């Protein structure tokens, strides 16, 4: 028996590793998204409320809480999106979309954004009711801000309130957001469900702010303004919803009930939508393309939704020495022996040149099915997409990379490893446990070894990889290179901040900060500083591209694949979903019908 249990426990380790890895893989972050269908939400609906039966949604990670401000992953945020609504969403184009509680999007043009970018006036929809029949007012919005902004609440959406001075209910249908200083990103507070969460009912949550937030029963049964209301919720298992009788659009939603089942693995989730048709929607099918492609090709039941956002699978290069003696491992005061020496840039370039992103994208990500070859770290918003990096990335040639090293004096030893002045090009390469990532590692290793590097592969379960307490974690970065995916809001300022000098992760800050590379370049820091204040869109775009090019051409990171943000299977019978890569996948669930 015990042999069984050990076995079981150890294979559960795989599951732990793999499941989390996949979280890590597909989206390291809660930022999934869905596309608002302006057409459906604006136009006359072709159906009446409750015409449909049950909508079956499958998430291979199960929601454990239905308060988006306490979410610990996309699953929680998405599951609550059926019930709660934000002021506005990010649409498929990455621009704000008024499909939430705001009647329109404030702009400088309509006078609702002040010329100095410090105040934003939000006009709310009239006559909106909570699902319990009470009226929704601006007070609820102001309360939600207070709840989220209170540090003691420890909301995961708290960063949306940073730099916000106040959110005031001017009258029942008007809310004024004031920033401490001019904020070029005026939609920081208010737009996007992933970063902002939804508006909570003041009456229900009044007792839950601050220190009381961690044992708040309302988190399991929030009252919302959204198209569906909660029926039953079993944390970590299943959520059932029914149509909200008080939803503001009298014809929506179409389905009488919705069941959102959680748990399992991505591969069999794909089977449930493509092969058996048991599920209408199957979330985040980030599995190897050679499993997915035959399933999709043979399916009469489901199709794939692939929508790009800002997700990039990237390799990070360590500028500090991960093997420094004593307490100095990974400290920015140390220098990586070959990535950060006099030949640092040359060695990094050789590594980038021997990186075969084309094969990875085509074979493992299905050439556009779940990802495409990518060369920028800032991607998804056309205005911000740099072209200066294209030729640099196109040059895949491990032999030429080897020659470049050879010319600089890095000579092949008898062990087939290049070395110079006694320093060998030996790499350790860490990432999360995940089938696609391990295949990527295998491809990288083969090519890099052709160029004369020696590569040792390491894998860490995602649950351990993404924590600042683990020596095998991304933050400590005690390996030479590491690989994972990350993404950002449409405005990438805080994302880019993660490569500035003041954000360097090191022992003194508990390895908490975002600059894992320990990259430090005053020029780059300057771009980010300017982005904090520059309000001219064209100049912002230039700065963002310059920052992007700085990271790519200096080979601080090697982007491999631009990944789809929405990678879900959907039944061919479901209509009305126009997914976005910048918001919750459920952002326009009110418009879905059969």
């Amino acid at each position: 028996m015990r042999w069984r249990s050990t076995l079981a426990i150890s294979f559960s380790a795989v599951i732990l590793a793999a499941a989390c890895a996949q979280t890590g893989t597909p989206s390291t972050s809660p930022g999934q998204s869905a596309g608002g269908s302006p057409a459906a939400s604006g136009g006359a609906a072709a159906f009446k409320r409750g015409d449909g039966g049950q909508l079956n949604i499958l998430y291979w990670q199960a929601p454990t809480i239905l308060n988006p401000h306490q979410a610990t992953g996309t699953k929680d945020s998405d599951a609550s999106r059926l019930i709660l609504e934000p002021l506005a969403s990010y649409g498929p184009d990455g621009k704000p979309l008024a499909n939430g509680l705001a009647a329109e999007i404030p702009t400088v043009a309509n006078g609702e954004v002040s010329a100095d970018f410090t105040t934003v006036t939000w006009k709310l929809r009239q006559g909106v009711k909570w699902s319990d029949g009470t009226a929704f007012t601006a007070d609820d919005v102001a309360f939600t801000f207070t709840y989220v902004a209170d540090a003691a609440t420890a909301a995961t959406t708290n960063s949306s309130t940073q730099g916000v001075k106040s959110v005031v209910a001017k009258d029942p249908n008007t809310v004024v957001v004031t920033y401490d200083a001019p904020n070029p990103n005026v939609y920081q507070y208010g737009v996007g469900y992933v970063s902002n969460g939804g508006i909570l009912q003041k009456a229900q949550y009044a007792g839950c702010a601050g220190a009381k937030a961690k044992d708040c029963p309302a988190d399991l049964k929030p009252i919302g303004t959204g198209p569906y209301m909660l029926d039953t919720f079993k944390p970590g298992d299943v959520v059932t919803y029914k149509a909200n009788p008080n939803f503001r659009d009298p014809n929506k939603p179409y389905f009488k009930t919705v069941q959102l089942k959680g748990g399992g693995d991505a591969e069999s989730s794909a089977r449930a939508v493509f092969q058996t048709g048991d599920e209408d929607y199957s979330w985040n099918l980030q599995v190897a393309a050679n499993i997915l492609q035959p399933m999709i090709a043979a399916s009469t039941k489901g199709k794939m939704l692939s929508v790009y956002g800002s997700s990039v699978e990237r390799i990070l290069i360590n500028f500090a020495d991960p093997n420094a003696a004593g307490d100095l491992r990974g400290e920015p005061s140390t220098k990586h022996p070959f990535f950060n020496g006099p030949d640092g840039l040359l060695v990094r370039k050789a590594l980038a040149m021997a990186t075969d992103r084309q094969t990875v994208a085509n074979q493992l990500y299905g050439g556009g099915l779940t990802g495409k070859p990518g060369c920028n770290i800032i991607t998804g918003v056309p205005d911000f997409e740099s072209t200066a990096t294209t030729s640099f990335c196109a040059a895949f040639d491990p032999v030429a990379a080897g020659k470049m090293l050879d010319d600089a004096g890095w000579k092949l030893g008898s062990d087939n490893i290049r070395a110079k002045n006694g320093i060998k090009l030996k790499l350790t390469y860490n990432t999360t446990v995940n089938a696609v990532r391990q295949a990527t590692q295998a491809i990288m290793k083969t090519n890099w070894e052709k160029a004369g590097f020696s590569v040792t592969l390491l894998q860490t379960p995602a649950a351990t990889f993404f924590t600042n307490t683990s020596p095998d974690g991304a933050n400590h970065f005690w390996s030479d290179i590491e690989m994972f995916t990350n993404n950002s809001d449409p405005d990438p300022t805080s994302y880019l901040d993660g490569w500035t000098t003041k954000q360097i992760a090191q022992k003194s800050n508990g390895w908490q900060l975002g600059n894992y590379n320990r990259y430090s370049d005053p020029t780059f820091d300057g771009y980010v500083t300017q982005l904090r204040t520059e309000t001219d869109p064209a100049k912002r775009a230039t700065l963002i591209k310059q920052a992007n090019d700085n990271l790519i051409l200096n080979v601080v990171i090697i982007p491999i694949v631009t990944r789809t943000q929405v990678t879900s299977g959907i039944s061919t019978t479901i209509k009305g979903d126009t997914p976005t890569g910048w918001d919750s996948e459920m952002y326009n669930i009110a418009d879905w019908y059969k």
Partner: protein
Amino acid sequence: MGRYILRRLLIAIPTVAVISFVVFAILALAPTDPLSSFGADPRVPPEVRAAIRTSLGLDDPWPVRYVKWVTSLAQGNFGFSFMSHSPVIDLLKQRLPNTLAVVGVAYIIGVVLAIPIGMISAVKRYSLFDHFATTFAFVGFSVPTFFTGILLIIVFSINLRWFPFIYDSTLVIHDLSSFLDQVKQSIMPITVLALFDTATIARYTRAEMLEHLPLDYVRTARSKGLKEQAVVLQHVLRNSLIPVVTLVALGVPTVFGGAIVTEQIFRVPGIGELLVRSIGDGDTPVVTAILLIFAVLVVLFNLFADILYAVLDPRIKYS
């Protein structure tokens, strides 16, 4: 015997206390994080992460947390889950029925099938039946449950369309057809689990019966004119049961612990699935609660096995 049991029960208290301390220490040292699924997301910056850790009480040194935990446990409170903000006991109550309906049933089926199979295999050693049972058992040991699970799904859910592979915990049994639905949705996970349980226990039963069959007392019994069936059932089986009892007793706590892989594959929201997810999420209150109950069951069922030894073999004496 009575005094022995009483003494063992008294020893059980410090034993469980020590176990809980060790378990707590291990959990505190393990590098997991309630926020790991955010990855490196810039939307959840370090200040926010720090605030969340503080609000969960993770800033205290772990011995302090242990004392707090024991104190609240003494008041009958398992605490609140970090992930769902609900009382841990509620989560356990939601999951226990599913675990019992799948893992528990599988275990019972396994034990009930295994003993006769093991017996027949032993009595008819190297017969066709024995070879078949042996092969079958060793398929069970060399093919992991994740594999049999997927195989069953492909055959019975995808090709034949007989059974669903997504377990619906909202199903309420109120009539025959809903009962049949329950049978349909639990038959595959039960098969996967029962295969392994049956194989294991049958091997031990067989081996132990083979030890006893050639012994003199069996010959004596036969020579007294007892029927073969009676000899096997009344004499050999009883004497062969000690290892089987040991194993069955060791297995009961693992039933409560759930079958992690199988629950995961078939999406059965059982205790095992809760445990492994909570470990990944660093949801310490849930993990400690499950492990504590598990430890109590281990201690109790091992005591139970010891009592049964004395019943099976009256010469066994404990001091």
